[in-house]
């Protein structure tokens, strides 16, 4: 008997839970943006003239293809994270894209049309050095891969190895380059630094010739030599300021021919390492004999090797010029030069490569973004117009990893902000009210100045509101007459305003600090970026470039003032802390417009240990941020007189905690009136037993609507809702599967009291956990059963509350009851977060990011330690699902249906104005935004709600009552007359 009922309960609960997207809802409330990361190699599809494909290989181990007209991603291959998947080189020939992956581990060939894998060949071990195509008689048939100690030749059609040769003296000679000019020989260039150059020629069939050339000045072929013309090696030596030429193919013992830069009237900038740039348009032919020599950060010279192979002619001097590049279409090769125009723009011009003449009407203007990085690299796609002149489009990579595609005469076709592939933290900020709404709000903010002016003000604001409403109606009417699809809702920063239900917000995202090594100035740029993104459309509304952010920086984004305090602008603060030194800096900005605030942040000369946002507000409604330095001194920001006074008054009730995970030390402090601190509690977890891996408090903006749970017998089980509770997760130092454990400590952050201490035996991390309301959910790896498990801890005060009016950590002597249950989860997870709603009435769901890219919305109902093992009358009354050891994963719970989020790193949830709705942003390589309705949309009418039917029925009923009333009256009257 119990079985069918329990089944019924499960079925019923699932029926309630089931939520999936209908086909017509796809993309209505959600969007996804796919990113690839910093571009390492980029090639245009030159296979056919009309093709508009662009191929990128990036530092995120991704090989992707874009539509160059729109910037849309056509396909993308995401390889393993880390050195196993690094792309060493990407070369393109015809329809084949050749790629060496994983430090010379694999050679792959991709079909550029569809993005399918043609073949994959496993290479011999050895670190990768270089690769090039090898052609015989104008057809490219092979690819040569140079490793540290061997060179191998592979067929282009199937990847089979034609031959492999061990390189002689590979322990002393550093082989760095491989060259093929379309003849029957492949040349390998190696160098013994500051001694000599070794050239080995391999015939395609077999056999080798070794030549050795004295070159005591040469230290690296890779950085200072290129091959130009008919197989002439051109090297530059910064010490002697000279160019050296050497014919590689010479029969007898060749010699370097020295050409002093002075003889060409060229001068190298002080301390600059000259760089050569050359171009080999087709692997079956030799490179062009023109090349660029960079003499300074913004000084390039176009040079030409004369036909004799010894003398050099200077074609044109470019100063200033940021970037140079060659591009080839058909038989024509052009030089592309980017020169600064003014503060906000750069010019890009084409020059004929063989003469150095400027081609007319080829200027393209590249707009320089002051909030972006400087241009870093040019990728040029040249093509022939109908009248045989050269036209081109340019892909500009800037230092902030952004890609901008420009075509003549300077139209930006598309921009991709690839820094967003590495978001580290984010916040959602409410949009400001519209002007009229703000006007109305402003009325309440000001001080009363008499009855009459107040009435006048009220009337005027009402008139303004009426006006706005009429304008809105007119707009609606006007737009309704327009055909559908023409109505565009362009989001700009000016038109941003809060919608009725506060569903549209500003997403402020912080990207990981990026590194960009600039050749021009021999300087490593370290930076991070802030983005403001509209949550409805996903369009980037502003960005801000933060310079000199160390690569190991950790970020904390704090909303100090929301938009609710008109006319004060909202204020966000980004705390950037160097992980090693602990030194921190603050960046204060307006999250709606991205502008840096004029408020000067305090100087922080000492390392910062802890930052805490107090509920205390200053006279401008900004919450106070307290920063604790390594001497336990406290800095307040903002630190006005008002704030300091408030702090002094409240000092004895301001507690904070510090955690030193390297010492296993948790300690609590109390603020004193003079803003010094005193240590009041200390808990030490010995590091020889376990180490602290994560500490998590509750989210400050979380609301819990119900204080307890009604049980089957109508009594109430009160929740233990301690806002100061910290969940501390530890892992054992002993990694043996039998002895490893995961510890979960619940510590009160004010008193340091250990509320609960649980040990999950035979378990190890990575532990993901969520701490909210009165529960902690954590996930770990069970080393004995080799599976992932979920465990839930819930804290209850019992059937009676100790003090129902207010919670104080200092006055709660009884320990809570702790219930715990564990379940098997059939998948590993990458991140976890809980939904959050405005008032906390809606039931909670856990959002679990899976490695497959799916985001699972798991009802908290399934993670309830009160799930009974044996179904009873009471548990059925309470709607508890009977215990089952395995947690189900239902595909209809995937909130992102087929829009997988690659390498999901974090999930952010924010409440909206609707109680039923929670806004969710998942970020990783991609960014996905959607809304979830954990208890379905109980406060929203459906899209297809039939207003006409309901109102007509109402009217019909109304008239029917009227008529029948009249009829009844007549009938009564008639009866009375009778």
């Amino acid at each position, binding site marked *: 008997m119990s079985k069918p009922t329990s089944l019924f309960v499960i079925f019923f609960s699932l029926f309630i839970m089931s939520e999936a997207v209908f086909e017509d809802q796809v993309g209505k409330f959600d969007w996804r943006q796919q990113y690839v990361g910093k571009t390492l190699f980029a090639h245009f599809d030159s296979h056919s003239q009309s093709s508009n494909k662009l191929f990128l290989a990036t530092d995120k181990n991704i090989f992707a293809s874009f539509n160059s007209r729109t910037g849309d991603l056509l396909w993308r291959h995401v390889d393993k994270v880390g050195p196993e998947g690094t792309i060493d080189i990407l070369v393109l020939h015809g329809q084949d894209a050749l790629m060496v992956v994983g430090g010379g581990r694999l050679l792959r060939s991709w079909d550029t049309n569809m993005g399918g894998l043609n073949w994959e060949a496993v290479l011999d071990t050895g670190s990768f050095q270089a690769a090039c195509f090898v052609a015989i008689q104008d057809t490219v048939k092979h690819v040569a891969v140079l490793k540290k100690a061997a060179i191998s030749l592979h067929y282009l059609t199937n990847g089979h190895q034609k031959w492999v040769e061990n390189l002689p003296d590979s322990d002393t000679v550093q082989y760095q380059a491989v060259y093929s000019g379309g003849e029957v020989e492949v040349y390998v260039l190696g160098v013994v630094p500051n001694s000599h150059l070794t050239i080995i020629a391999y015939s395609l069939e077999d056999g080798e010739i070794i030549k050795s050339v004295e070159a005591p000045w040469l230290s690296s072929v890779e950085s200072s030599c290129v091959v130009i013309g008919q197989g002439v090696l051109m090297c530059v030596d910064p010490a002697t300021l000279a160019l050296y030429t050497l014919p590689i193919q010479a029969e007898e013992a060749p010699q370097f021919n020295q050409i002093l830069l002075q003889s060409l009237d060229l001068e190298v900038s002080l301390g600059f390492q000259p760089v050569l740039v050359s171009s080999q348009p087709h692997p079956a032919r030799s490179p062009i004999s023109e090349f660029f020599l960079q003499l300074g950060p913004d000084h390039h010279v176009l040079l030409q090797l004369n036909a004799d192979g010894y003398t050099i002619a200077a074609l044109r001097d470019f100063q200033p010029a940021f970037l140079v590049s060659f591009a080839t279409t058909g038989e024509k090769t052009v030089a592309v030069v980017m020169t600064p125009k003014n503060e906000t723009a750069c010019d890009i011009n084409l020059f004929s490569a063989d003469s150095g003449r400027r081609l007319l009407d080829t200027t393209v203007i590249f707009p320089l973004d002051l909030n972006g990085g400087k241009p870093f690299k040019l990728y040029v796609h040249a093509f022939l117009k109908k009248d045989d002149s050269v036209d081109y489009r340019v892909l500009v990579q800037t230092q902030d990893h952004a890609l901008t595609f420009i075509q003549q005469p300077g139209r930006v076709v598309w921009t991709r902000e690839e820094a967003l592939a590495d978001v580290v933290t984010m916040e959602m900020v409410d949009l400001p009210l519209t002007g009229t709404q703000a006007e109305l709000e402003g009325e309440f903010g000001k001080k009363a100045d008499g009855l009459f002016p107040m009435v006048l003000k009220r009337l005027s604001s009402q008139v303004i509101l009426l006006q706005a409403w009429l304008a809105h109606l007119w707009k609606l009417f006007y737009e309704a007459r327009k055909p559908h699809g023409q109505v565009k809702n362009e989001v700009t920063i000016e038109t941003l305003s809060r919608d009725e239900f506060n569903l549209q917000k500003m997403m402020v995202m912080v990207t990981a600090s990026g590194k960009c090594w600039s050749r021009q100035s021999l300087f490593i740029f370290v930076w991070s970026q802030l983005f403001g993104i509209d949550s409805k459309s996903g369009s980037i509304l502003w960005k801000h470039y933060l310079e000199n952010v160390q690569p190991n920086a950790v970020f904390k984004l704090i909303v100090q003032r929301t938009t609710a305090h008109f006319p004060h602008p909202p204020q966000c603060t980004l705390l950037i802390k160097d992980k090693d030194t602990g030194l921190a800096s603050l960046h204060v900005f307006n999250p709606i417009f991205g502008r840096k605030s004029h408020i000067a942040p305090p100087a922080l000369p000492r390392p910062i240990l802890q930052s805490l946002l107090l509920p205390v507000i200053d006279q401008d409604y900004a919450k106070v941020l307290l920063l604790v330095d390594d001497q336990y001194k406290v800095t307040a920001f903002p630190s006005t007189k008002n704030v300091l006074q408030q702090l002094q008054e409240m000092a004895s009730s301001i507690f904070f905690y510090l955690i030193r995970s390297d010492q296993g030390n948790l300690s609590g402090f109390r603020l004193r009136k003079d803003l010094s601190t005193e240590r009041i509690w*200390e808990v030490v977890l010995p590091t020889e*037993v376990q180490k602290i891996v994560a500490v998590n408090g509750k989210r400050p903006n979380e609301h819990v609507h119900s204080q307890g749970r009604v049980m089957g017998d109508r009594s109430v089980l009160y929740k233990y809702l301690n806002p100061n509770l910290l969940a501390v997760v530890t892992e054992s130092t002993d990694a043996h599967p039998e002895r490893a454990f995961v510890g979960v400590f619940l510590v009160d952050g004010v008193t340091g009291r250990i509320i609960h201490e649980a040990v999950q035996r035979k378990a190890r991390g990575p532990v993901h956990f969520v701490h909210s309301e009165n529960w902690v959910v954590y996930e770990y790896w069970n080393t004995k059963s080799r599976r992932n498990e979920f465990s839930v801890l819930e804290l209850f005060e019992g059937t009676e509350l100790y003090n129902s009016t207010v919670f104080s950590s200092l006055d709660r*002597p009884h320990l809570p009851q702790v219930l715990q249950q564990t379940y098997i989860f059939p998948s590993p997870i990458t991140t976890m977060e809980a939904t959050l709603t405005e008032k906390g009435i809606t039931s909670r769901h856990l959002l679990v990011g899976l490695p497959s890219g799916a985001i699972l919305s798991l009802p908290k109902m399934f993670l309830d330690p009160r799930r009974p093992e044996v179904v009873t009358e009471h548990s059925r009354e309470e709607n508890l699902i009977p215990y089952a050891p395995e947690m189900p994963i239902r595909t209809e719970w995937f909130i992102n249906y087929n829009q997988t989020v690659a390498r999901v790193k974090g999930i952010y949830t924010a409440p909206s104005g609707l109680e039923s709705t929670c806004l969710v942003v998942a970020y990783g390589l991609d960014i996905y935004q959607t809304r979830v309705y954990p208890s379905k949309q109980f406060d929203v009418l459906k899209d297809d709600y039939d207003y006409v039917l309901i109102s007509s029925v109402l009217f019909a009923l109304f008239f029917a009552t009227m008529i029948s009333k009249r009829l009844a009256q007549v009938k009564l009257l008639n009866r009375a007359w009778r």
Partner: protein
Amino acid sequence: MASVPRLCLLLSIIPTILILCADFACCNTGRKTGDGLDTDFSGFSVPLEHSFEVDDVSRFRMRGALQLRGGRETSVSLSQSQLSEEDRNTLKEVAAVDGLYKIRVPRVSLTDRQTERQMDGYLTAFVRACSLVESHLSDVITLHTDVSGYLIGVSIVTIPGACRGTEVEDEVDLEAFNTTLTIIPPTNAPQPETALFIERMDIEHEKRGKPQEQKSFFAKYWMYIVPLVLFLMMSGAQDQSGGGAANGGGR
């Protein structure tokens, strides 16, 4: 020898709670009752210190001695002296300015006596002095240990815990501590209950009785299916020939 108690500690899931009301008026502060001879069996003692100062600068003094016994059943007892006249006054003064009453114990291991000396530092906890005064020195001190028997934390609460501002007139109420002392080892988190679940499923299966020998669908209805299939085949063949003819006509 050291590994046996540790094992025992792991086994003792239910902590032994030993309550000791400190009514011995004659106990000397800090005098170790367990002498060198029987430390292995009757445990060892560590000092419990407290500090309450009007200026909130910690100056820890001896409050009593904790007798720790890390045997089969970990137990702890406390011997402590009465508060002196001076201390009582200070405590009242501290309570009046809402100061803190702090206690501390040294970090020790209950099982491994060798490492006790190597660990330095203290575990500290506090309670508001006023609540201690108002509860007439009835406090609950809890010692927390980790899996290997190290003391990791100490906590102190008073019952009742609130400060209502009631004046404690009687000096006698502030003389002796009425201390409840417990030691809490970590609880073992549950594993997924697979065995019980399977057992329950089996029982339910048995309850339902053995299901009748299920005939396959085909075995049950072959007498209907075979004629139908035959009929379809026949008509299909006709159709095909008809269709072929039509195709032929089309060409």
